[in-house]
C-alpha cells in the first residue's frame, strides 16, 4: 500500500470513528444557536466567545484541561463499574469521601514533605472512595440489593456526613481555635498540587494543575486494567455475561466488589485531586458536587472507553469553560447545558445513522449477489 492510500485509509477510519460524535456536536450547536437567537443574542458572537474561552491560547486550553480533570476521572469511575454490569450512580458520594479524606490526611500528616504527603493523601482518598463504594458493592454481592438504590442513598449520606465533619470536626474553629467557618481548615502548601502556570508561564492565568496528569493516568490505568489485565478480562466478561463468567471460574461476588471498589477508588481520587488542586478545603454544601453525575454523561458519551472518555471529558470541558466567556457576552449559561443535553441525545440515537448504513450495505449485497457463507465452508470440506 502506498502512502497516499494509507493516508486515505486513516482519514476514512478517523471519519468512521468520529462521524457520530461530530454530527451530534453539530446538532447540539445548531439547537443552541436557535436558543441564543430567541434570547435576542448573536449565536456567532456567542460561539466565538465559547471557542476563545476554550482555545484562545495555551492558558485557555489550560482552563479547559482544568475543567476536564474531575469529570474525566468520574467518567472513568462510572464506566469501569458499568462495564462490569453495575450502575454506579454513587460517584457523588465517593467523590466526597475522597475529598474529605484528603483534607483529614492533609491536616494530620501536614509535617511530611510534599511528595510523600501527596502520595499518602492520594492513597487514603482512594481507600475512602473504594470503601464507600464497597458498601454498595458488598450489599449487592452478598445480599443482592440493587446498587442503584444503595448508591443513591449513599450519596446523600456522604453529603450529610461530610457536612457534619466540616462543621464539627475539621473546622478551623476546632482545629485552630479561630472563628467558626463554613469550611474545613485549608490544606497546607505541601499538600497542594502544583499549578502548571507556576512552572510554565505559558499557562497564564489558568487553573490547570498537575491533577490533569493524574486524570490522564487514570485513563491509561483503566485501559490497561480493562483490556490488558486478567482482572479486566474477568470484569468485562462478568459485565457482558455473569453466568458465563461464573462458569469460567470468575466469582460473581468478587467481581462486583472489585468493580465497585475500583470505581469508587477512582472517584475518591477525583475528589482528592479536586480539593488538592483547586479548592484546598471542603465546604458545607446543600448539594453534592455534581461531578459524579457529570461522570455518567461523560462516560456514556465516551462510549465507556478510556480514549472516548478523554475525548468526551475534553468536550464537556470546552463547553463548561467556554460558557464563562459566553456569560460575559450576556448569553444564558443554560444554553450550554442544553447544548450538552442535545449532544448526548444525538449520541444516544446514533442508531439513525447506523440504520442508514445498514440499509446501504444490504442494497450493496443485493446488487452484487454475494455468495452465501456456506459455499466457503464447502471448500474447507
Amino acid at each position, binding site marked *: 500500500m502506498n502512502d497516499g492510500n494509507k493516508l486515505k485509509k486513516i482519514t476514512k477510519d478517523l471519519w468512521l470513528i468520529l462521524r457520530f460524535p461530530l454530527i451530534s456536536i453539530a446538532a447540539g450547536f445548531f439547537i443552541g444557536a436557535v436558543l441564543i437567537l430567541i434570547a435576542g443574542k448573536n449565536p456567532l458572537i456567542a460561539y466565538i466567545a465559547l471557542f476563545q474561552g476554550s482555545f484562545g491560547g495555551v492558558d485557555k486550553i489550560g482552563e479547559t484541561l482544568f475543567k476536564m480533570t474531575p469529570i474525566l476521572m468520574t467518567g472513568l469511575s462510572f464506566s469501569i463499574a458499568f462495564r462490569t454490569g453495575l450502575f454506579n450512580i454513587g460517584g457523588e458520594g465517593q467523590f466526597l469521601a475522597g475529598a474529605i479524606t484528603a483534607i483529614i490526611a492533609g491536616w494530620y500528616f501536614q509535617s511530611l514533605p510534599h511528595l510523600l504527603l501527596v502520595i499518602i493523601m492520594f492513597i487514603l482518598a482512594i481507600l475512602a472512595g473504594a470503601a464507600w463504594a464497597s458498601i454498595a458493592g458488598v450489599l449487592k454481592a452478598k445480599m443482592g440489593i440493587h446498587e442503584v438504590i444503595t448508591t443513591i442513598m449513599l450519596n446523600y449520606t456522604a453529603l450529610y456526613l461530610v457536612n457534619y465533619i466540616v462543621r464539627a470536626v475539621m473546622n478551623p474553629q476546632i482545629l485552630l481555635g479561630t*472563628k467558626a467557618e463554613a469550611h474545613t481548615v485549608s490544606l497546607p502548601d505541601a499538600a497542594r498540587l502544583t499549578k502548571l502556570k507556576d512552572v510554565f508561564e505559558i499557562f497564564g492565568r489558568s*487553573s490547570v494543575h498537575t491533577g490533569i496528569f493524574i486524570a490522564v493516568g487514570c485513563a491509561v490505568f483503566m485501559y490497561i486494567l480493562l483490556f490488558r489485565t486478567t482482572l479486566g478480562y474477568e470484569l468485562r466478561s462478568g459485565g457482558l455475561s455473569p453466568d458465563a463468567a461464573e462458569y469460567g471460574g470468575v466469582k460473581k461476588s468478587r467481581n462486583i466488589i472489585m468493580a465497585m471498589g475500583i470505581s469508587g477508588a477512582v472517584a475518591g481520587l477525583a475528589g482528592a485531586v479536586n480539593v488538592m488542586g483547586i*479548592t484546598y478545603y471542603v465546604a*458545607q454544601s446543600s448539594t453534592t458536587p455534581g461531578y459524579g453525575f457529570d461522570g455518567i454523561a461523560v462516560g456514556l458519551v465516551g462510549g465507556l472507553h478510556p480514549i472516548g472518555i478523554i475525548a468526551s471529558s475534553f468536550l464537556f470541558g470546552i463547553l463548561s469553560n467556554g460558557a*464563562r466567556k459566553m456569560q460575559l457576552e450576556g448569553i444564558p449559561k443554560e444554553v450550554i447545558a442544553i447544548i450538552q443535553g442535545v449532544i448526548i441525545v444525538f449520541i444516544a440515537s446514533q442508531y439513525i445513522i447506523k440504520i442508514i448504513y445498514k440499509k446501504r450495505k444490504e442494497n450493496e449485497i443485493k446488487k452484487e449477489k454475494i455468495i452465501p457463507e456456506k459455499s466457503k465452508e464447502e471448500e474447507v470440506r
Partner: protein
Amino acid sequence: GGGETPATEGEEGQAEGEALPGEGKVVTMITDTGGLGDKSFNDLAYAGLEKASEELGFELKILQSATEDDYAPNIQTALEDNPALIVCVGFMMEQATVDAAAENPDINFAIVDGVGDMDGDGQQDVDNLLGLKFKENEGSFLVGVAAGLTTETDKIGYIGGMEFPTIIVFESGFIAGVKSVNPDAEVYVEYADSFGDIAKGKEIATAQYNKGADVIYHAAGGVGLGLFQAATENDFWAIGVDADQALTSPENADNILCSMLKRVDTATYTAARSAVEGTFEGQVQTFGLAEDGIGVGDGGENLTEELNGEIEKWKAAIIEGQFTVPATREEVEAFEVPEI
C-alpha cells in the same frame, strides 16, 4: 436582570451628551454557587451594581459560578477585561478573592459578606480588597423583638438554611431579640440543610406551626418560600430576610410581618461608584444598623405603630452601643437582657 429587588431606581437622570465617569470601564460581578435568583445577596449585589451602571455608564458583566471550583477560574476570566472592579459575592468566595487580589495588586476587588482575613490575624490580608461585612445579628435582633412581642402562643420558629457560622449569626441575633422582650417565649430552631428545597421549608414551617409557633423567621433562601406558603395557608406570621420580602413575594405580603433587611445593594453601589470615580480604598466596611446597611423592612405594612416604636427604641440602643448583639450561640448563652 436581577428581579424586583428594592434597589431604588436611578432618579437622577443623566443629561444628554454628558460623558459619564464610567464610560468604557468594566465592572464584573461573580456570584457564588447560589447564583442569580437567590433572592438574597447575589440578587441584591447585582441590583446595586445595575443601578450604579445605569448612573455611571460602566459596562456591568456577570459570571455565575456553578461549583466551588469555578470561583478562581471565574475571577481569572474576569481579570482579562482589566476591570475597574471585581465584585465577588458570598463568604464562600473569600479565599479565592484574597488569592486573586494578592496576585493582581492593580485591580480593585470587593468581597460581599467577607473581610478578606484568611490568616485570622484580624487584619485584611491585601490592600486592594474592599470587604463588605454586615451585622445581620443586629437586624435579626430587631425582627426578634417584633416576633417576641407579636407571638400569642409564646412559641416562635426559626428556619436556617444550613448550619453555617454566617447563618448562625441570624439565629443568635434573633433569639437574643426575642428573649429581650419576651423571656417566656420558646424558639424552635431548625435547619433545612438546603437553600432551595421549598417543600422542605414548608414542612418545617408547618411542623413548627403545629407545635404552636405563630411567628417564624427564616434565613434559608428559597426554603423560606415554603415558609411563606405555609404562613399564608395557615395564617400565621412569617418574617423575611435580606430583601423586603413582602415586596418580592407580594402574594404572601399579608402574612409577612416584616423583613430583616441587608442592604447589599447599597454596599455594592457605593463600592462600584468609588472604583469608577477613583476613590476606591481597600478596607473593611461594616454595615450595621448605624450605617443603615441593616434594617427592618415592612413592605406589607403589617407592623403596628407600637411595634415600630419598640423596634426603633432597641435600634437606637444598639446604635448608641448600649449593648452588643450576640452573633454566636456562645454569646447568646452569655447574653443578659439589657435595661433600656
